[in-house]
Structures are given as C-alpha cells and as structure tokens.
C-alpha cells in the first residue's frame, strides 16, 4: 500500500472554558476527539459537518495553528512534531474561508505574496519576481494586481490571492477551509474550477473542509463526515450521500435541499451540550434506530462491508 501523505492518529483537542464562578472548576470543551484519518497523495479529501463539529479545529491542527492535546500527525511520513514551523509550512499550506479577512489590509498584494517566497523559500529578489509573475498567471489575475491593496478586490479575486499565497510555498498539501462558502455561486464555480486545475498542474493533495454537501460531492474523491468532534463515516464522495451508512450522514443527505424535492426536516434535533457530552453515542438522541448499546458504548470507526468506514453499532446490519 502507498504510504499516505497525511496520517492523522488519534488526534484530540480540547479548549479550556472560562470559569463560571471563582470556585467552579474550569470546564473543557472537546472540539476534536480521537480522530484518525489517512489521506493519499494527490487525493482531494473532503471533511464535512455542521458548525461546531470540530472540522476547522482539525484543519488548524494539521497546519500547526493549534497544538493537539494528544495524538500524532505524520506529513509525508515524518512526524510533524519534529518539524520546525517553517519546514512544516513548506509541506502543508492553508486557505481561509474569509477571503478579505485573510489578507492584511495595510499590505499590497506584492508584499503579501513576497512573504512566503522570502521567509519560507529564501528566494532572492529576482527569482521572487519571476515566481510572482508565474503565480498570477496560474490563478488568473492581472499583473497590475500586485501594486493594489486587498480592499480593491472582489471576494473571488481576493480568494485567488489567498490561493496564490498558499501555492508560493510550493506545498504538497493545501488545507482549504470553506474556500468558497463566502462567495456567490457563479464565482464559487470559478474558484472550484481553478482549484481543480491547480491540483492537476502542481500535483497537490487537498483537504477540503466544507458544510456544503453538494460542493464536496462534486469536488472531492473521498469524504469524512464529522459529528460532535468525531469522524462518523469515511467513504467515496460519489457514493457517500447516495448510500449513507451512518444515520447522521443520512440525515445530512436527506435534509440538504434538492431541486424538485419537498422539504425534509427532523421534528426535533439539536447538538448535545459540548460542555456536558452524553454517555455513549453522541448522535443517539437524534437517531431513528438507536438501541440500548448506543447508550453505554460509543461506537468506534471501523471498516464496513462496502469498504467505507463507519462509526455505528448498526451500520452493517442491512
């Protein structure tokens, strides 16, 4: 088997909450719980889930913006803990959701794009200029863009600048954190097409975080579904929603609006309180086929019959 380019092992992260009162104990919010995933070279791997499911925390741990409490990350076979921040960011880069917010308002595009060239790759001025011209061409921005400030660009153009910045580190892997959610659909499609082209051109591996099932299905090869800090299902993108194995994936697939279908909605259903997580399976209160075992035992992610990985006690009983 080919060595995965990203190997995540039992990754866990919690955040300390402010004390409610002077004497109350500090509660911890478990954002990511015991997540393990392998991602192959050249793959577009989607991570999907609703707000608060831990997908962004997971993504930020991969690039080193958060330090995990426990568990390990291997990038290209090397333990990320042994790498310096700069070494790590030459391998893995990140594109943020908010296109305008991720560009410093006081810097010109040239200054923004020069930073990775100088600090991560140590290029001299001439080599850097040549790179700049090439990258603008790759993300389809005019050369005049270099001397402008971020506020002079539309959302789609600003996202192209962010993508260019990530590419200039010459990474193997790019984490795309909701890269098109803030954009209009026609622009969203432009950026997705650009990302697909760049993936082929530079041989990139993508980790694509999103809450939009349709975008993930169209863009990714494999998808992990997260619920309440855990991965509950991993399967091929073209089948995961059509043949959902985990009841939560099924819920997502049936509530997402489809043209020509009526509205399908749960009558009740909210996330559990993250500060007082329930015993057993976190989804059981919303689950149509939960049994006694779900109350006591949290199911672990295991390989199911069709090659998909599912974390459900009842997944294989069909």
């Amino acid at each position, binding site marked *: 088997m080919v060595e995965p380019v990203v190997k995540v092992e039992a990754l866990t992260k919690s955040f300390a909450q402010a004390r409610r009162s002077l004497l109350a104990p500090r509660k911890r919010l478990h954002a990511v719980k015991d997540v393990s995933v392998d991602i192959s070279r050249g793959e577009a791997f989607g991570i999907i889930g609703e*707000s608060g499911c831990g997908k962004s925390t997971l993504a930020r741990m991969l690039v080193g913006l958060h330090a995990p409490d426990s568990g390990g990350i291997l990038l290209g076979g090397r333990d990320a803990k042994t790498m310096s921040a700069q070494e790590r960011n030459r391998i893995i880069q*990140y594109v943020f959701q908010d296109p305008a917010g991720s560009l*410093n308002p006081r810097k010109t595009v040239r200054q923004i794009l020069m*930073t990775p060239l100088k600090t991560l790759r140590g290029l001299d001025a001439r080599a850097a200029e040549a790179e700049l011209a090439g990258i603008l061409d790759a993300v389809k921005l005019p050369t005049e863009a270099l001397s402008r400030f971020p506020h002079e660009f539309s959302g789609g153009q600003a996202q192209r600048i962010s993508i260019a910045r990530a590419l200039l580190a010459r990474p193997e892997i790019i984490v795309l954190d909701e890269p098109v959610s803030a954009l*209009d659909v026609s622009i969203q499609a432009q950026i997705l097409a650009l990302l697909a082209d760049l993936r082929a051109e530079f041989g990139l591996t993508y980790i694509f975080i999103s809450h939009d099932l*349709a975008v993930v299905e169209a863009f990714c090869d494999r998808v992990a579904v997260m619920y309440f800090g855990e991965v509950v299902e991993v399967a091929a993108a073209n089948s995961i*929603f059509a043949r959902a194995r985990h009841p939560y994936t099924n819920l997502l697939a049936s*509530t997402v609006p*489809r043209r020509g279908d009526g509205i399908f909605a749960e009558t009740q259903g909210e996330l559990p309180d993250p500060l007082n997580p329930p015993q057993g399976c976190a989804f059981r209160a919303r689950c149509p086929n939960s049994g006694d075992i779900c109350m006591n035992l949290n199911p672990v992610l295991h390989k199911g019959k069709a090659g998909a990985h599912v974390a459900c006690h009842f997944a294989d009983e069909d």
Partner: protein
Amino acid sequence: MMVRFAKRILRNRLAGFGAGLLLMVTGLCLVTPFLGLPDPNVISTADRFSLPFEDGFVLGADHLGRDILSRLLWGTRLSLAVGLTAALIAALIGSLIGILAGFFGGKLDDLLMRSVDVLMAFPYILLALAIVAVLGPGLMNALIAVAIVNIPFFARNVRGVTLVIARSDYIAAARLSGRGSISLLLFEVVPNLWSVIIVAFSTTVGWMILETAGLSFLGLGSQPPQSDLGSMLGEGRAALITNPHTSVIPGLMIFVIVMGINLLGDGVRDALDPRLAKGTLQRSSPVTQVLRTGQPAPVDTQSTLDVAGLSTEFRVDKNPLRAVRDVSFSLNGGECLAIVGESGSGKSVTALSITGLVASPPAVITSGTVGFRGRDLFSEPFDVLRDLRGRRIAYIFQDPLSTLHPLLTVGAQLAEAMVTHDPRLTKPVLRRRAISLLEDVRIANPEHIMMSYPHALSGGMRQRIGIAMALANDPDIIIADEPTTALDVTVQAQVLRILDDLRRQKGVGLIFISHDLNVVSQISDRIAVMYAGQIVECGPSRDVLEQPAHPYTRALLASSPQIGAGGGLPKPIDGGLPRPDDLPAGCAFAARCEMATDICSASAVELRGSASREVRCVKWEAANG
C-alpha cells in the same frame, strides 16, 4: 495619501477652525525669539499691574511688573513643549505595553495589564500629585507625572485593538507564510495600529496640556521666575478681582490651545475611524426618500401586494448607483414568491424599498408604486407606513441577532412588538400570545425560552424567534431576506418547514429572498430571478427550474451544484456583475452570455411574455415572440 487625508480632515469645518487656531499659536511660539520682546523675567515693581497698552506694555504687566505678552508667549512655548513631550512619552510607553500585552497574551498580559490597573485605581490628579511629591517640584517632574498618569489610557486602547488583530485570519496566514513572532509583530500587526495610536494621541494631548498647567498652577510645575501658562494663572489668581487681566490673558490662551487641539483631534478621529470612513455620520430619515417624476400610475387593487415599476438608486457620487431598475411583481395571501439573485443583484434593496426601509440619504426611490390592498404606500403619510411596517408587512433577516435587542428577554421583545401596535393589550394576554407564537415556530419549551436572552440561544433557535417576532401582529405579508443562509442544513430544513407551514396555514404572503436555487425550489410557488437590478425571468418555480428561459437563469442553475447530480464540477459563469454606476445600455448580462450578439447590446431589453412566464431576453423574444 497625506494630501487626501488632510483634505478629509478639513472637510469638517470645525476641525479646520481648530487647525487654524493651532497654526496661529504655534506660529507665534516659533517666532517669539525674533520678536524683540522684553526679557520675560525682568522685574520692575514700578510697573506692577500695568493695564494693556499702558506704559508700552502691549498686554500689561503682572504683579512684579513683568511684561505679560513676553511671559505669555514664552510660557506658551514651554507649556506646549511640555504637554506634547508628555503625550509622546505616554503614547510611546503606553502603546508598547498595549502591543506586547495584546500580542503575547497569557502571563505577560496579566502582569502588564494588572500593573496598568493599579495605576488606574488612583484618581488622576492625586496620582500626579503623589508622583511630583516624591520626585520634588519642577517642570521636568511634572512632565514625568503627567506622562505616567496617561500611560493606562494608551495601553488599554492599544491592547484591545492588538488583541483583535492578533487573532485575525491575516495574522494566522502570515504566520503560515513563515513569519516568526517578532517579524509578525513588527511587519503585520504594528502597521494596523498607527491610526488607533494617532487617534488616541490627538484626543488626549489637549487634556495633557491642561494637566501640566494644573500642576504648575499648584506651584508643582515650573518654578519662578520661569513662566508657563499654569504658573501665570497661579500667580494672577491673587489679583483676580483687582487686576483680572493678569489671569484672564493666560486663561484665554489655555482655552484657545485646548479648544484648537480638541476640534482638530475630533476631526482626525473622524477621518481615521473606519466606521466613519464614508463621510461623517449622517442621520437618515425614517423613510426612503421618494422622488417620482410625473403622476404615479394607479395601483392594482386585485392583489394583496403589488409592486410596479419600482426603481431605487443610491446617490453617492456623480453617477447614481442604480440598485433596483423597474421591478414589478405581485403577491397574494398564502403565496410564496422567491426573489433569487447573487450579491449585488438588488434583491435586498427591492425588499427594503417596499416599506421605505432603505437609508436615505443616499437612497432615493425614483419611480414605481407599491400597492398594498389597493393603496399606494409611497403616497401615504409616514404614520400610515409606520403602522404597516411590522404589523401588516413584517421582515425576517439573515442574522436575527442583529435585529434582536441583546438586553431584553425573548418574552419582553415579543410583548413589545405586540404592544407597539396595540397598546390596550394586558400582560396576561401578551404572555399567552407570546407562548402561542413560540409554539407556532415549534419551540418545545416556550416558558423557558421566554426568559432567555438572544445571545444564549443557538442560531436556529434565534431564527425561530425572528419568525415569531414577524408573526407577532398577524401580518399579511412576510418578507424573509436570506433567512436560512447562516444556518446548518439540518436546521435550515427545520426553519423552511416552519415558514412553509405558516404561509399555508395562516395564509401569509411570503417573499423569500435567497441566492440559493436549491433552497428556493423547495418553498416557492413562483421565482423571480434578478440580475443587475432587474428581473430577468419570472414564472412558476417548477417551470423556471426545469425549463429556464433566460441564459442567466440557465447559467446560474449550471453553476449551483446539487447532490446526486453526478455531473462533476459546477459550471462557472465567466466574468462578473457590471458596475451599478456604469450599466450597459442593452442587456446587462450580454458581456457574460454565450448567446450574445450585437443586438443584445444595442438597446434596453424589455421584460416580455405573459403572467405564466416573463423573460428579459432578445433571443427568447425572437424565438417565442
């Protein structure tokens, strides 16, 4: 850059006046040594208390017969220099503390900010007095005292802003581009802090000059015979009644300086504050300005709501931004009309124009009528419109948190919404109605939710409250502007279900505004697609989605992915929206359209067809004419 900035400050007349005063005073200070004034410290008891223009003293003489004009100018020099230096020192040290505390956080933040808190715990002037008492009187020590007293102001201001910047995505992005902490701080954070520091400086320097004068007045600052404004005032105080000019003259000078600085400081703040960047704060009128040429057409009396030929524009620069152009549609009770478009298409401005909620200035409704039950709302007096808003025509917005009052409980807000339109309602009735409203939006434990504050609720719960608020007065029409865009899919489905049930069961007319065709397809009877301020296609939902007639509708459908479609990546629409202040003469979509030919751009394209399908396209007209 500097010139533009100066122009922006001087646009504010008071700031210009302040700048003028300051220029005059600093000019006088600069030329003082060359004016050939008498020595300010030469005592001539024979001339004590000479009045202005007496014995060759332009401004008279003080209690020791010294020339007041000379003492005043030399004193002003000194006071300004000391005040400015103190302000610079306080700004430098305070900002440094704030930057370090805000950027590094943790223990360093605790240590620095708690020390600053200790400084702040003492009353201002007492602390300054204590410092001078320890160091001993003298101008230099007064300067140190004033600087120290003002450090907390800068430290706290700068720390707050640094904290926000340090947590921003662009700092995280720069970190991932390889910058270390020091380099991040110097090259990414600090450039964003200048405006805050300058604003803080310009609004406090006047105060610091006053404080220095205060210490001198008490005899703790400049020591005799050296004059500064505070000490002159102090010396003149004894003769305040008999010879008022000795104290009035330095008093006036202090007044002129501080007023000049404060007026200019306010101008600088207004020019630098991003919230005020688009000009000074304007008070907008309670209803959008209506400037229609000619007599408006009579309104349709058949439908509940009838919008005809509505045009709204924003008059900001020379060319008006034409946000809504000749939009017409009608709606009856129980119906749902979806208005679909991308950002900038004019869908929200259309919705807000209906009850005149677009801020004027700069918005102006230039043509059209909004008929509600046969009355033209734009011809009615404001009272009628205000009464209709919220009561007969209610709104639901994307972010309910921005429309809910953060300090009132959900129950109190529901009650308020009902009482505003019917003051006779009693408390028990209000409570009962509020509970039933919450049940209408499927809230499981209404009594508990009534007592909650908006911030404690989840996004989906808040949007239900938003819907309950809209329902509070049994409206005929609800206008929902992107009501589910901020919600997760499972919650979105629940909110759509509620809205759909309500319009069917209560017979409310629903205008559902969205950018998402998939969402719209589930709830609407009819769809109007907007592009560049115009409706380009309108018809029954199923027909528009299954047989789109306008090229833009087709392109929009092809660019919105759907699950289970299996067709690979969505197809982008090349290019972008035309600028609303520079719209083409012909079809606004022609530049992005695959079918466009020369005739598309030749002249304005009309919306043609029947009630079952209206399309604004030359090609469609030719084929279906």
